[in-house]
């Protein structure tokens, strides 16, 4: 078998310096903003995180009841509710709605689930025009690229690259002024909204009690998608449930501050149904698609806590590995710590293909410390590493020395001490550190090892005790 490469580490090593620094500094800035926003505004943000975590876990533990409650509430509000077991079903539902409505053009606001189902390429294949309207997502779309962050999709691009893309697409003459670039997008997308038949969104929260979705954007694109079009389709993961409308302020407080350091995102919409009768503009029909796509399996697994995620991106902003690798290294829709757990579990191709993701962590725990719903990400990474070992996924063990021999020594004090005494360090102390190849080579490429002093403390102690202890 060909030697497996450590894809994420290689990706990082091959990243150009400019991109790496851009990603690291932007992530660092967002981390600082988050800390400022939370600690300036609250005495104990950690109490909020625990509370939010409890509400979300409660919703997940009782998900079937809440899903049924939500379905009934939406229907009462005149919303047509659909269910999709996987991405293909969800995409087919969208296509079907569009055909029935005689629609051919859709404007889309940013939604991670539709990235999961690869909705845009699917619709394009079926002759529909689908346009991403979030500025970052639009750039990603015209470049045939992928988002590298769940909140700031083009964190890996600079203004010059955006300028060249806009020039290429005929939005205007080349400029690298972010203000002018934003104006170009405004003009161009404005017409797209007005021409579109369907507005497609995700949802940040689904309120079971009231049958409303809650959607936040800073740009106003979701709002526009629901003002200019005649049909609104929202595709949401089944885990997005919040029980009560009065729970929403807690989550909005945490989401805005964790994601961008804002007390509240600029546009926060509570949408429950088609436009009211007196309203001149807006959707006559609203459809809600509940997407499973692996979530019910995760719910049954020992990683179910990851479903609490509210997609704020704080864990990737703080993650030292993400800061060095950027999002594409994770080869999936969800990068960073949340992605290292979620992506291998959602991966259509199967867990083994992304089994290296849970390894891309020093288990430092910074992610859990910032997570607004207190997801024990390091624990989940450990469980997935164990899963990888148990299922013999080769990518779980790339460049990782086996520890069974070490474990044998570590359970037999005699062998352990002999090893220490004889200086057979390589057989006793963690192979990870000393194994001749490739670990030691890898270690020594950038670091020195301290001198081996196996058993010295034990010898000192013996002499010390003979002397009668403290002098």
């Amino acid at each position, binding site marked *: 078998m060909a030697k497996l490469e450590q894809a994420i580490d290689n990706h990082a090593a091959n990243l150009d310096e400019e991109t790496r620094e851009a990603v690291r500094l932007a992530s660092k800035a967002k981390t600082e903003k988050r800390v400022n926003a939370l600690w300036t505004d609250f005495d104990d943000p950690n109490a909020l995180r625990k509370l939010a975590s409890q509400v979300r876990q409660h919703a997940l533990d009782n998900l079937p009841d809440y899903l049924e409650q939500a379905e009934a509430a939406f229907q009462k509000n005149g919303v047509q509710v659909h269910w999709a077991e996987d991405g293909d079903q969800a995409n087919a539902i969208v296509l079907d709605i569009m055909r029935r409505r005689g629609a051919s053009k859709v404007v889309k606001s940013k939604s991670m689930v539709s990235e999961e189902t690869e909705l845009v390429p699917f619709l394009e294949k079926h002759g529909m025009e689908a346009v991403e309207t979030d500025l970052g997502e639009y750039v990603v779309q015209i470049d045939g690229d992928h988002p590298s962050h769940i909140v700031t999709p083009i964190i890996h691009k600079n203004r010059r690259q955006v300028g060249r893309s806009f020039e290429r697409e005929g939005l205007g003459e080349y400029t690298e002024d972010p203000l002018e670039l934003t104006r170009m997008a405004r003009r161009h997308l404005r017409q797209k909204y007005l021409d579109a038949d369907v507005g497609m969104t995700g949802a940040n929260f689904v309120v079971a009690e009231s049958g409303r979705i809650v959607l936040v954007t800073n740009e106003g694109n979701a709002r526009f998608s629901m003002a200019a079009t005649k049909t609104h389709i929202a595709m949401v993961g089944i885990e997005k449930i919040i029980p009560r409308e009065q729970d929403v302020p807690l989550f909005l407080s945490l989401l805005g501050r964790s994601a961008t350091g804002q007390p509240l995102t600029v546009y926060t919409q509570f949408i429950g149904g088609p436009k009211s009768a007196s309203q001149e503009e807006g959707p006559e029909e609203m459809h809600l698609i509940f997407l499973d796509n692996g979530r019910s399996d995760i719910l049954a697994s020992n990683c179910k806590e990851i479903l609490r995620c509210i997609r704020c991106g704080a864990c990737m902003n703080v993650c030292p590995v993400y800061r060095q690798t950027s999002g594409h290294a994770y080869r999936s829709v969800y990068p960073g710590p949340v992605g290292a757990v979620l992506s291998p579990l959602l991966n259509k191709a199967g867990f083994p293909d992304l089994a290296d993701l849970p390894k*891309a962590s020093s288990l430092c*725990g910074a992610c859990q410390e910032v997570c607004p719903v207190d997801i024990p990400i390091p624990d989940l990474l*450990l469980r997935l*590493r164990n899963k990888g070992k148990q299922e013999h996924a080769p990518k779980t063990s790339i460049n990782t020395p086996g520890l069974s021999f070490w474990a044998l020594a570590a359970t037999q004090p005699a062998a352990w001490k002999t090893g220490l005494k004889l200086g057979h360090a390589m057989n006793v*102390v963690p192979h*990870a550190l000393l194994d001749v190849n490739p670990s030691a080579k*890898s270690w020594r490429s950038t670091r*020195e090892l301290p001198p081996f002093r196996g058993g010295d*403390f034990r010898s000192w102690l013996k002499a010390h005790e003979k002397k009668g*202890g403290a002098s």
Partner: protein
Amino acid sequence: MIQPTAKGKRIKFMMTCLCDAFYADVAQASYEVLEHLGCEIEVPAGQTCCGQPALNSGEWESARKVVRHTVKTFGGEEPVVIPSGSCAAMTRHGAILGFESEPDLDEVEGLARRSWELCEYIVQGLGIDSWPGRFDGKVALHRSCHTRGTKVYESAVTLLSSIEGLELVEVGELEQCCGFGGTFSVSFPYVSKKMGQLKVEHLTEKRPNYVASLDMACMLHFGGMMDRQGVKTPRLHVSQILKKALENR
């Protein structure tokens, strides 16, 4: 993370495998600090390692064997004092994760409730909040990652900042990891190196006279990088500072 409750000065000392193999002087300093406090110390000879390397590698079967050995070796009621935030986190949290569906989970939790990191034991366990003696110099203290969710780091800050002559300097991006992560350092060598470089920059930015750590694992990594880069700032485990202060009374 289970918070320890076992109290008293009759203790068991877990030297940690890294000190057993590399850092005898750190184990010795910790021992002498505990002796100074009047502790009656037992050092179980059968001790090996807390089992963390295997747990972190996903080899939970192996990890459980080592944890069982550790639980047996450290049996009893006394506090177990450990000069490492990381090994303490393993006995208090990691081990429990690995035993969630095992019949002997209780025993593992028992050890968890007795496990203290050294500084935390002194400050939270014994209620001591100032340290005698003198230690001259500016110290940059690394906040090792596995002290999150505990009072270990703040206990160390309490002790160090009470020492006459010692000035703690600010360390930037305290929440960032040094890049060790056990086998991570060799299986993701590039990312680990970049993280280590940043950590060395932050630790030495304010030109301290010493760099200090609560964990020799972190120090093994960023210290090894400092040596390779020729950064000469001396490095000490917190216990070594406490001991030196005692010598200057």
